[in-house]
């Protein structure tokens, strides 16, 4: 019935796909996970996808993304291969334990699950469901909110694989773990990746998550990650997006934090096609800290939407949001940051700041700070700016002999620097710093200078043009 499929909604199309491929999707997984999927697909049926009438989605239209003849892989299509042959990370001094996902599936170059000598388990989520069903069942789905308007329910219904990390109590994982997420497909591809990170009490982890596409083909990634930080656990998290213009990413990250836990999140979007990043942090217990940093440098018709929600559910917690963006051409950016302070969350400290620089009249930034406070003894602040560079600083630099173009570059570089300086891994910070500088000078080619060095034959040049300011 080809006529019928043309007229059905994106939601119905996905629901049908789920029903038709049900056996392949659930395969041999634990019953509890299948039950979770059933619940999730019912949520999709009942609520549909968020549209532009939905608060937080007013400026980001999902629907067109679903209208492509996507391929879906319900089994792992990736064959064993040497990842180094198609891909090398060019942050030279970055010594990491790296794991790769190809088209959403764990790449079986080593064992699907690795246990480090300190007891840390790293590997495929699909495999973890098999080997550690109780552990996965206990956590999976308990942070993600299937009822909020997002694609979380869709991900829960469809996810097949992703990364599983378990850090035992008191363990400090020395080397950063790097997740490299590669899309390489000759056809349009839709993937639903799922990550689960469990950090037991007092553990420490650095996680670098790199999103990359090796082709300029259309792709839609709807990924979801759930991270659990038990008492005094600490996570330094980096998400670096450097994707082709035809790629779309919807990412839902959920963090649940217990007493005295620490989260430092850095979202660095150097190139992203269509990007909707949602970060949800629940500070469940006292003295938990969450710092969310973000930097986006976008041009052409790229669209980046950062939606943050920090829920202060317990007293004496601290949260900070700093998101900055430079927009060129017709690029658009949305920032919606919500801070919720519940009735019992006295002595909350919550800060939020979003700053945008627009290089053209066509570039657009929408900033929506939201505070909802039910406690009376709190310190909260928020600020949002959309504008140009400080004319006083421009004049000062020019009176010292810097031409307008150089002065602008220097100021934009400094603008981005506030976020870059917060990167705690030295080699990564230095590399990102160089990338940002090159990006702002219009000298950065995505394929030979990016964080992720690939072998694409069609180099794309970033061209934020400072002369337009």
């Amino acid at each position, binding site marked *: 019935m080809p006529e019928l499929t043309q007229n059905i909604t994106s939601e119905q199309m996905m629901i049908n796909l789920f029903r038709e491929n049900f056996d392949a999707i659930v395969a041999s997984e634990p019953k509890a996970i299948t039950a979770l999927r059933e619940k999730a697909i019912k949520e999709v049926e009942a609520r549909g996808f968020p549209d532009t009438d939905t608060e937080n989605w007013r400026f980001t239209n999902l629907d067109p993304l679903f209208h492509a003849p996507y391929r879906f892989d319900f089994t792992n299509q990736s064959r064993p291969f040497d990842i180094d042959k198609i891909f090398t990370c060019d942050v030279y001094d970055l010594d990491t334990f790296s794991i790769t996902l190809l088209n959403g599936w764990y790449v079986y170059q080593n064992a699907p699950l690795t246990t480090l000598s300190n007891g840390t388990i790293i590997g495929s989520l699909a495999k973890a469901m098999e080997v550690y069903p109780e552990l996965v069942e206990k956590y999976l789905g308990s942070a993600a909110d299937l009822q909020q308007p997002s694609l979380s329910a869709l991900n829960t219904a469809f996810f097949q694989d992703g990364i599983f990390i378990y850090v035992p109590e008191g363990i400090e994982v020395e080397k950063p773990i790097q997740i490299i997420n590669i899309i390489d497909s000759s056809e349009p591809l839709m993937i639903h990746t799922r990550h689960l990170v469990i950090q037991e009490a007092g553990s420490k982890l650095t996680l670098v998550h790199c999103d990359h596409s090796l082709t300029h083909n259309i792709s839609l990634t709807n990924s979801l990650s759930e991270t659990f930080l038990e008492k005094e656990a600490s996570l330094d998290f980096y998400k670096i997006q450097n994707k082709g213009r035809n790629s779309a990413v919807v990412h839902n990250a959920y963090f649940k934090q217990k007493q005295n836990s620490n989260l430092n999140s850095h979202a660095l979007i150097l190139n992203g096609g269509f990007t909707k990043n949602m970060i949800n942090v629940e500070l469940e217990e006292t003295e938990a800290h969450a710092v969310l940093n973000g930097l986006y440098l976008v041009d052409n018709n790229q669209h980046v939407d950062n939606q943050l929600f920090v829920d202060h559910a317990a007293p004496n917690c601290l949260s900070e949001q700093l998101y900055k963006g430079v927009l060129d051409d017709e690029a658009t950016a949305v920032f919606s940051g919500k801070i919720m302070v519940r009735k019992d969350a006295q002595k909350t400290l919550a800060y939020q700041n979003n700053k945008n620089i627009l290089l053209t009249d066509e570039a657009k930034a929408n900033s929506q700070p939201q505070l909802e406070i039910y406690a009376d003894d709190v310190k909260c602040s928020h600020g949002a700016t959309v504008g140009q560079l400080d004319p006083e600083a421009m*004049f000062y630099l*020019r*009176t010292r002999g810097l031409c307008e173009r150089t002065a602008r570059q220097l100021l934009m570089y400094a603008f981005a620097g506030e976020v870059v300086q917060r990167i705690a891994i030295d080699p990564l910070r230095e590399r990102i710093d160089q990338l940002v500088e090159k990006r702002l000078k219009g000298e950065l080619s995505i394929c030979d200078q990016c964080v992720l060095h690939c072998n694409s034959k069609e180099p794309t040049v970033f061209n934020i043009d400072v002369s337009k300011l």
Partner: protein
Amino acid sequence: MLSIKDLSVSIYGKPILKDFNLEVNAGEVHAIMGPNGTGKSTLASVIAGRDMFDVDKGQITYMGKDLLEMEPETRAREGIFLGFQYPVEIPGVSMANFLRTAINERRKYHDLEPLSGAEFLKMMEERKKLVDIHSKLTNRSVNEGFSGGEKKKNEIFQMAMLEPKLSILDETDSGLDIDALKVVANGVNKLRKPENATIVITHYQRLLDYIIPDFVHVLFDGRIVKSGGKELAIELEEKGYEWIRKEAGIEEPM
């Protein structure tokens, strides 16, 4: 070196400088004094090239060239330096990166090779001593978190690094205690050369005890109403500005 003829400048239609005239030759130090709001800082800004002012009439010639036709950076590269009354804080731009870029852009303009990193650092260490700067500037952002005194010292330090022909120091003494004032004045004096010129803009005579001017001009209502030697500054300190207002026949402002 600098010749300002019949210069009239306004902002948003409000006249500030009116038929202003000034001649500055190499080797000279000129002090421009006057009460607040008489156009002293406007004069400095117009010479440096700030575009918020409208030049309604007159001309400025610098080293035989039409200054008003030049972009601010061209004026700087041709040897004009403005010491700001309120130096701008630029977070995230390091002093070293900023100054090296400034020096090398100037050198490029004069067809000179860029300074190497080592040469630049050596120069920076030397010139820091001129104004008693002990802190490491390499990692500090331009003026960020500097005290009032440090900011003014930093202006003179930049002047020492950029080696201008004509320096305009706009209220460099404001907000300085006597020790910092001596340091700043001492720096300026050490940088004095027969081929250079300096315009010192100040409200008080105090700075002129340390930077001895060849000429003192009193600016009132957008014009120079009285000029003299360094003794004029002393007279102003004793008698205030009122007698000049009366002598020049200018009405008291509302």
